[in-house]
């Protein structure tokens, strides 16, 4: 394997425009679906398919180039900088929802339950957390015409406890962080067998986590805690939902890294894809810790 001296500037990139078309198709289809169009779902999945084809194609191209020694160290640095700032943008995205939880819980809900707001609008509302609001919002009732606003049933709910599945999930994700690091050490020590074993463990722990989340969601919905259950349900499902999505993405990325490890890719000093996946996995891990503390425990 020879490494290029020059900074690699690729030419004629076709995947970006294909991926853009796929994403456009997916979102336009989704918007049509939300507006009640019958063809929306078709375009959504067509777009998703195109997008997935793009991901497979683009990443295959990248890993081939990487294995052929196309990228010098400076290119690798660019990739690392890119991944770092991508994760930074993801942190900013999660901050919105953590900030929403903080603001509603500590400011706007107490404001709703005090002073003239309480006195004139809804004297029975005490403004304590967890809450589904002065009107005790429950299940969302979608309107006949999707462009109109929906309504909600009135319902009581039980907030999520921390020490059942969520605690198990915490242990799962934390240990997956450890196995991921062991895999990294094995890679650096050129122990291919251990690398693959620990990666399998990491991916498995990730998917078990997702499974547990699915079970938890199922129980929540069975007991009447839904996305429509006022601000508690909104913040709970939005935060854990986006996190769960990120765990899925992280686990898929790790699966690809596992596949590439099995194919014999990566060397101790050239394994950006592994590093990027590991960084992403640790990011997802830390977000979960935040969720466990602020959503479940407090």
């Amino acid at each position, binding site marked *: 394997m020879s490494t*290029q*001296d*020059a*900074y*690699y*500037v690729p*030419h*004629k*990139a*076709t995947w*970006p*425009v294909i991926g*853009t*078309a796929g*994403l*456009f198709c997916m*979102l*336009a289809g*989704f*918007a049509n679906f*939300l507006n009640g169009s019958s063809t929306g779902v078709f375009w959504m999945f067509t777009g998703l398919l195109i997008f997935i084809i793009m991901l497979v194609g683009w990443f295959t191209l990248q890993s081939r*180039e990487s294995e052929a020694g196309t990228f*010098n160290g*400076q290119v690798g640095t*660019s990739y690392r*900088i*890119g991944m770092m*700032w*991508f994760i930074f*943008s993801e942190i*900013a*995205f999660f901050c*919105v*929802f953590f*900030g*929403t939880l903080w*603001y*509603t819980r500590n400011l*706007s*809900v107490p*404001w709703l339950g005090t002073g003239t707001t309480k006195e004139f609008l809804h004297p029975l509302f005490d403004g304590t957390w967890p*809450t589904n*609001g*002065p009107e005790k*919002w429950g299940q*969302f*009732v*979608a309107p006949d015409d*999707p462009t109109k*606003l*929906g309504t*909600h049933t009135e319902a009581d709910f039980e907030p999520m406890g921390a020490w059942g599945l969520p605690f198990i999930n915490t242990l799962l994700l934390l240990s997956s962080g450890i196995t991921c690091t062991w895999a990294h050490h094995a890679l650096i020590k050129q122990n291919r067998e251990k690398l693959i074993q620990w990666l399998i463990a990491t991916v498995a722990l990730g998917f078990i986590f997702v499974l547990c989340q699915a079970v938890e969601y199922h129980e929540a919905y069975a007991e009447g805690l839904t*996305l*429509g259950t*006022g*601000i*508690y349900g*909104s*913040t709970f499902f*939005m935060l854990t939902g986006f996190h769960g999505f990120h765990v899925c993405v992280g686990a898929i990325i790790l699966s690809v890294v596992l596949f590439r490890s099995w194919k014999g890719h990566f060397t101790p000093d050239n394994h950006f894809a592994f590093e990027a996946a590991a960084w992403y996995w640790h990011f997802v891990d830390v977000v979960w810790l935040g969720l466990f503390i602020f959503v479940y425990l407090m």
Partner: protein
Amino acid sequence: MSAFSAKGYEVKDHNTPQHHHDDHHDDHHGDDHHGPAKGWLRWVVTTNHKDIGTLYLLFSLVMFFVGGAMAMIIRAELFQPGLQLVQPAFFNNMTTMHALVMIFGAVMPAFVGLANWLIPMMIGAPDMALPRMNNMSFWMLVAGITLLFSTLFMGDGLGAGWTMYPPLVLQTKEALPFGIFSVHLLGISSIMGAINIIATITNLRAPGMSLWQMPIFVWTWLITAFLLIAVMPVFAGAVTMLLTDKFFGTSFFSAAGGGDPVLYQHIFWFFGHPEVYILILPTFGIASTIIPVFSRKPLFGYLSMVGATIMIALLSFVVWAHHMFSVGMPISGELFFMWATIAIAIPTAVKVFNWIATMWEGAMTFETPMLFSVGFVVLFTIGGFTGMMMALAPLDFQYHDTYFIVAHFHYVLVPGSIFMIIAATYFWLPKWTGFMYNERIGKLHFWLSAISVNVLFFPQHFLGLAGMPRRIPDYAIQFSDWNMISSIGAFVFGVSQLLFLYVVIDCIRGGTGIKATNEVWDGARQYGGGIVEGLEWTLPSPPPYHTFTEAPEIKSTIPR
């Protein structure tokens, strides 16, 4: 061949064209290394920073006229009181779309286009750091704007203003999800562009160029890119909550379920205030590049310029609620956001003083880029002063949501951002095309624009102070005169921009027939790069398809 890498490079005379036909490339580089691909597909699959820069700039130019046409509709309706030309819903649609198109379609892409063209040439890099992603961020922009324009054909379209406050925005019909997904795509585009710019600046500078020697335009873009990555996801999160509130029954912004519509305003402006600095910081970089060249003096206070830019960027994260003084916040909040906002005047004033000090006793000439720059310094400062007026919370209750705020932000955006994008175009157009533009028409364009922009926006201060609300298609009879004057200014300003279009096309076609030299402007090489030699002025005009495949030598132009 000595390759471009941090480890080794050799000093070369970089006055020679940067084509290296003798480079021993292998098959990874493809067969088109020496020039662009053939046919129209070149523009679809290109990874070249100059091609992508051109795409961005042309796209921005088109959007400038589309958004401008919407502004003309607004001013035509407001020419007289009463409803003459359009229905109120269409008027709301136009105010919303005008803002979104100008911000996300015209100004931001223009800056990204300038970044693409200039940053690699200014820091001596072979291209952007992540060329394939560079292509994708442009096409994501096109996809996002396409979704946005699709809403024009859906009933009343988007009409709740570009800020999209709930609960009003949730009354939007079919257009709402399209508008929201358009914001997502535009956000992805901006984040990818910004990551690319940061990676390029931090990793691809020619050996010998430290951070503290970078041209000031590069500095301002580095900071702008940081702001973009920090706040575009925030906007994406906010509109995602709008989507779930409308379609999936969440209650983030509904008090009945325990949420709060004011929460949206907080999140939106936590994005929105850094966003307005995203629209102005590269402008500062352009002014700090052009003014020294036409003053034949080094930029006054390079370090304080960088420091002021960083200060402005950091402060932009703690001032958002000055957009919401009248919404009903605790008095301690009002006071905090008032003082934090006023503090921004300090670094901004540092910049204005530095520009004036740069001009002081300089051997100044007034070619078109300089005219626009001087016009920018004066008129942007007026916008800054009205900003100070509105930063004062007690006074803001008088101006809030009136034409005063419309006058304020148009003073900082039109003679601010737009003027400097135009100035940058005149300044670098000869470098890009290899031909000088038509200076006489350029100057005419400046004088018509500078006069009409004041006729257009200055009366709006009076209208606002007298109480005329913004975003309303009709108004009370006592506002008639100033509205008519403002509209006349708008029409003159709009028509004047056709001169710009003519000059740009004429220059691309080589209409003047005057070939541009490498340096283009007398003094550009010495003063156009801040405290080092302006590298893009060492290249031929137009520069070859690939530049600085070998790192150039960095020469200090002023002793430090």
